[in-house]
């Protein structure tokens, strides 16, 4: 075993409490990875990070002796709004490094401080007593966190989003949420081009799309676990083009092309019930089996622990 993965929040957009989300969970994005070497890594700080924080209080984090790394895909609410409720960050002595992208006119730290201004929250970011460092990432940046090698890759989402690949002791884990495929040529119709010109543009667009998708496929190549945005069904996607999310079919296409071993559907739409997800998992498993594909397909649920 190289690392233990645990899902604390699997939902997209907004937290959805209630009886219809008990199985897969209603908290927004947060995934924990603990490596063999004891490196504590947290992907995103949606509402799920609150319960993760409570659980960490039984570890050295409870005594102010913890060290953790928080990798933010991006700073839309459903990926940061649990942070003000993350108890270990209030304990003096704990140390956290928060990684993510900066915004054109705002540093990463300013973005996180913005959600804790007095009009929105009673406690300021600067009043959190743990030592917090911020690392602003570039596309394709690689770095090490303890025994984990990390690579960050820019994904296709409004305002941008980072996917992360972790390599630890010969095992690999990819977290790629809030990502829409680059597969929509938008220049069709309405423009009166001569056939030859249209063909030329189509060729260039499809080459570009193939290059961009190829980069994503390389990024997930051979992953033991690929956690991927699966917010929409194909039918839903038709009215959500450009919203920055994938369908189940998109994620399966990327996973299969990259020979990922296990695809875990993530960032469930708030409207998706447990029954819906059960049905979707069964349908896609049957379809994969029917095509003789070895890819394992699952849907992330809160509380799930996987060792790889």
């Amino acid at each position, binding site marked *: 075993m190289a690392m233990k993965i645990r899902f604390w929040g699997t939902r997209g957009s907004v937290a*959805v*409490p209630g009886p219809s989300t008990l199985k897969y969970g209603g*908290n927004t994005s947060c995934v924990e990875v603990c490596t063999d070497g004891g490196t504590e890594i947290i992907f995103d700080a949606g509402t799920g990070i609150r319960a993760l924080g409570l659980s960490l209080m039984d570890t050295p984090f409870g005594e102010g002796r913890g060290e953790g790394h928080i990798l933010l895909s991006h700073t839309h609410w459903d990926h940061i709004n649990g942070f003000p409720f993350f108890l270990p960050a209030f304990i003096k002595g704990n140390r956290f490094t928060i990684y993510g992208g900066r915004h054109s006119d705002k540093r990463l730290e300013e973005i996180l401080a913005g959600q804790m201004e*007095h009009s*929105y929250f009673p406690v300021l970011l600067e009043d959190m007593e743990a030592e917090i460092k911020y690392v602003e990432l570039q596309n394709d940046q690689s770095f090490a966190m303890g025994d984990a090698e990390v690579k960050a890759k820019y994904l296709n989402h*409004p305002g941008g989003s980072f996917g992360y690949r972790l390599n630890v002791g010969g095992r690999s884990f990819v977290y790629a949420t809030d990502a829409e495929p680059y597969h929509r040529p938008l220049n069709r119709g309405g423009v009166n081009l001569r056939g030859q010109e249209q063909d030329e543009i189509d060729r260039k667009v499809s080459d570009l799309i193939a290059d961009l998708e190829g980069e994503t496929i390389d990024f997930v190549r051979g992953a033991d676990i690929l956690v991927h945005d699966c917010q929409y069904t194909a039918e839903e996607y038709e009215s959500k083009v450009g919203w920055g999310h994938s369908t189940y079919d998109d994620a399966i296409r990327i996973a299969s092309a990259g020979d990922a071993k296990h695809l875990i559907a993530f960032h469930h739409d708030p409207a998706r019930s447990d029954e819906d997800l059960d049905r979707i998992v069964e349908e896609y498993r049957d379809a994969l089996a029917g095509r003789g594909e070895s890819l394992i397909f699952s849907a992330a649920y809160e509380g799930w622990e996987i060792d790889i």
Partner: protein
Amino acid sequence: MRIKFWGTRGSIPTPGRHTIKYGGNTSCVEVRTAAGELIIIDAGSGIRNLGISLMKEDFGKGSGEGHILFSHTHWDHIQGFPFFVPGLTPGNHFALYGENKADKRLEDTLAGQMEHPYFPIRLRDMASEMEFVEVKNGDRFSIGSAEVLARSLNHPNGVFGYRISADGRAFAYASDTEHYPDRVDEAILEIAMNADALAYDSQYTPEEYGKKVGWGHSTAQEGLKVAEKAKVKRLILFHHDPTRSDDAIDEILENCKKDASEMGLNIEIIAAYDGLEISL
């Protein structure tokens, strides 16, 4: 009038098995008068489900009209608004009431939660028509057949409690308020006096409160003091702490009922849950 609770939790939504009975959505209460006016108090995550339900009415056709009273703009009271589908539907009309701060109007604060890099859709892209109405401490105003009174209560960065009177009945909403050690808050008494129901901030147990002085929240027991002095008919425990399981809320309710009977206070006490409906 009819009251329906869509979100009863404080601080942050708490999905999961331990909150199935009382619910995990943050603050949102719907008030309907007999004449049909829709008044919503607060836009925590509970307003998402209220919105879905409203889409079955005129709001689905873009001909709905509603009024939203904001107690204040801490996250748990506004975070559902971007997911309020009637607000995204052209033709609907909403009046939004709340306090303008010296440096930020209510509109700016609501727009702030929908700016890049926090949210992909801007407030101005919500296609319904929105009108912002500034509320000041002590203001009395009409919403159709309803009379509203707003009073400033005790909470960091300020909060309004509201009294809504209609059809000869009164509903008082006092969430996110901390009691004073030596007296019952006059402002709460004013909104709660002879109310048919009072929704009261019951975030903490008396034991917990000792460690949370100044955080702007109260206890069920302090709610009893208000209810007694204001001669309230029903006390509704509201704004449950996110750490509170269903069992823990059951226990708080039982203790509160015991304390009421020891005080000789004969009123109905309810712990609010997502989906609770009361006719006054």
